């Protein structure tokens, strides 16, 4: 992977837990090989690359190794083999001082159960990373106050974590992770501990913040809906391996494995698939009438599709090129395919 544009990437990453000498780790190492020596692989031969400004969501059920993967990427735990590159530097080869310096300037992380320091106020929690890097008191308080109002907690600066609700605590956690203006933002199941209504609200809040700060993001979740709602790209993990890493649309339309297909089966495709994905080259067919925007989801333009008399509807991509969308195909996605017995 020579993608110079990638901010953080990992190559053939393995994390194996267990006693004593590690077995040789390569593509052909199987679970049975490891178990024979009493080892358990949490991350198996994972290679990923995340571009600047991109948001990668790592999705997997509990025990799939997603949390271990993100901890390897942040070097909270050391990988067993393989390399993690951050802006071209090998994370594993860094000294402790270099690593601390990197975290103080480049990395921020949000935790599932917030990880707030119970003896510090919201303000002091947000100021903590600034304090660690030796910033003076006045400027770190100014910065922390600003961050707290950014996440909508103005007026709660003096509250202690236990005096805040779960959603508010996670807002503090988010403010803290952004206080040092990191380039790379790790979020480890940030909304899993929240109840469904608050979770939805926090996802909206997150999308708002994401648009404002433009970071490279690694987001962990076990919630597939959350993943397709937020992601630029999704990596689906199972038993420590990445089953598929692709855009939400491609994952829904073309699941690479039966396991991925199981997740996508219950998803409302019309909310994921955009008009552009169904757009085919014109190939000499006639193009008539108004064109649809390629980045609209089918759900957003459902009414037009249903009522439009044309069999092939023109779709205009962002670069101005025009293709044609088969209306029947779009209707299949919107309404589901015809079932033979009801069609009769």
């Amino acid at each position: 992977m020579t993608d110079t544009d990638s901010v953080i990437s990992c190559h053939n990453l393995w994390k194996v837990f267990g006693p004593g000498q590690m077995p040789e780790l390569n593509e052909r190492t199987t679970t049975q090989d490891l178990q024979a020596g009493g080892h358990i692989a949490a991350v198996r031969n994972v290679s990923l690359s995340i571009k600047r400004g991109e948001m990668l969501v790592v999705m997997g059920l509990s025990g799939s190794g997603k949390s271990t993967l993100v901890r390897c990427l942040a070097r909270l735990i050391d990988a067993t083999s393989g390399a993690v590159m951050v802006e071209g530097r090998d994370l594993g080869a860094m000294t402790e001082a270099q690593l601390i310096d990197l975290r103080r300037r480049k990395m921020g992380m949000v935790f599932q159960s917030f990880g707030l320091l119970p003896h510090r106020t919201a303000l002091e929690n947000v100021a903590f990373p600034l304090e660690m890097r030796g910033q003076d008191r006045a400027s770190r308080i100014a910065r922390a106050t600003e961050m707290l109002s950014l996440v909508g907690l103005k007026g709660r600066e003096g509250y202690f974590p236990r005096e805040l609700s779960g959603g508010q605590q996670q807002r503090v956690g988010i403010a803290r992770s952004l206080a040092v203006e990191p380039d790379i933002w790790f979020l480890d199941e940030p909304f899993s501990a929240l109840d469904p209504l608050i979770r939805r609200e926090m996802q909206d809040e997150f999308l708002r913040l994401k648009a404002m700060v433009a970071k490279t993001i690694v987001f962990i979740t076990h919630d597939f809906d959350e993943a397709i709602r937020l992601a630029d790209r999704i990596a689906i993990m199972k038993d420590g391996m990445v089953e598929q890493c692709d855009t939400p649309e491609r994952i829904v339309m073309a699941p690479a494995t039966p396991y991925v297909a199981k997740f996508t089966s219950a998803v409302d495709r019309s909310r994921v698939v955009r008009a552009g994905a169904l757009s085919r080259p014109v190939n000499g067919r006639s193009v008539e009438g108004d064109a649809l925007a390629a980045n609209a989801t089918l759900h957003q333009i459902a009414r037009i599709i249903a009522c439009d008399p044309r069999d092939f509807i023109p779709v205009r991509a962002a670069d101005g090129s025009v293709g044609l969308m088969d209306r029947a195909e779009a209707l299949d996605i919107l309404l589901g395919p015809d079932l033979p017995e009801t069609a009769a």
Partner: protein
Amino acid sequence: MTAAALSPAPASFDRRRTAQALLLLAALLATGRNILPEALLRPPEALVIPFAAWINAAFAFARDDLGLMALTRAFSDLVEFGLDVTANLLYGKARWPRLGPIPWVVIAATAATLGHALGGRRLAAFAGGTFVWIAVMGQWQWAMETLSVIVVAAPLSVLLGLALGTLAWRFSVAERVLNPLLNIAQSLPHFAYMIPVVVFIGIGPKAGAIVTIIFSVPPMIRLTLLGLRAVPPEIIESGKMSGATRWQLMTRVRLPAARTEILIGVNQVIMQSLAMVVLASFIGMPGLGQKLLQLLQALKIGLSFEIGTTIVLLAILLDRMSKAAAHRQPVHHAAGATFRQRHPHLLAWLALTAIGFALSALHPYFTEVERKQALSLAGPVDAGVDVLLTVVAPLADWLRWFLITWVLIPLRDAFLWLPASAVLVFVAGIGWRVGGRRSALVCLAFALPIALSGWWDRAMITVYMVTVSVTLALLIGLPLGLIAAARPKRAARMLLVCDTLQTFPSFIYLIPVIMLFGVNDVAVIAAVVVFATVPILRYTVEGLRSVPPELVEAALMSGANPRQMLWQVKLPLAVPTLLVGANQSIMFSLFMVIIAAFIGTQDLGQEMQRALSSADVGKGLVLGFAVAFIGLLADHVLLTWSRNRVESLGARR
């Protein structure tokens, strides 16, 4: 038997067979006592290992050749300096900084303000009231002598505990070394600590402070380790991701996050310090303990009752305050609060202190209550006790006669009659039954050294006293616990009473029993029984209370009546907790039997007192280890049994 039926069959079947064989052998040895060779009755002289001489040699070597004396001197000089400062401030001893004594009204006001800050109005009234009581009753000097030691010893012991606890957390080697040491240290009787200190430091307040520090460190180490382990991993990770260095992570993340456990450790240190300071009167520590000891020996019940009340009040106060501090949660101030709103207690304290100094300037009564100005309850208390005694005397006398003639003396003779070989085989059998060969070996490892130390008879007397006391404690504590646990409110009240009783220094329990029974074996047993009943009561209530409600509901829906509920559901599930209670009860009674030695017993405790007065380190430590090993033996058996029960219950559920 139920335990046996529950545990997995094949492994435990063999274990049961072996254990039965061993127990049978023990019974045979006991019945055939008269035809046994002498060597099986008592370990022959030739086999007795001179542990005491070895320890003495080791100590002499450490003291004279390793220059350990210089080290202890340096440490004790530091302690002495602290003691002088507090002594000057609290009761005006003529030492640097020569500011004291602080008027008692000021100290009472300080205590009340602190009480208010930590626990609201009630704790404030209790704190202020305690100090007013001390001053008005004319016990100021003694109480301050006692407190001045705690004020110096507790912080040093907290620091030491934090350091060692952190070390044990950081290096697993340190933990592996410390763990067994702590186990032994926490089962060594108080006196065992005093003897080496007397040898190195001498007697007096300094020695009292140092023995207090050593005695109160172990729980601090344990709780520091526990607290550091219990910090949620995400908090540590968030610290790391914030770019904290190791030192920043320790001081600003781990230690503050472990605050509650550490403060509970501080609470333990303070309570242990108080218990030890009172006992340190045996090595010339002035203060409440010494006064109590003198008065008890002179059988002045009324006056010792007064002192006892003070000690109890101080114990409860220190416990409540430090617990309140441990469980206090930070609360934010309203935005834009003024200095006055943010620091009400500081300002109140300043105002009260100023008033206090003004009062003491007006009249010397507010600085120090002279002996002749002091109130006393001794007269009425003595009169009341006399009336009580004339009423209960016939009963108490009969009870004493009955216990001594029909229970205590026959039992003691029986324990002494038992051949040592039979006891050792019996112990091994019990061990085997509980935990197989490993446990049998552990039990023997604790029992054999006692036999080889040459103190077998004394140890058997201690065992007999503990056996009698714990049996009586079970007979009293179990039914009381069952009654208390019947209603939730009653159970909560009973637990509060138990908690309070457990804060009392053990010495206190001697006052009422000496009052009732005088100075003899029965008084000792009575004191031990009272002391040992508390944990049994407590764990009975807790065991019954902690039965999962859905099991109770399931039993109710199956139509269980109250009796069936108790015997078929609650008690079987409470057994592991009850065993833990019995274990603590044995530990408590061992400690108490040894302490009670000064009112006349013939067991290990009495010998320990002798070793203390002749400053014989070797003998004292051998006796101390003998006591500790009895405790650890019981501990191993009961806790293993309890664990097995929990496992079998868990497997069944």
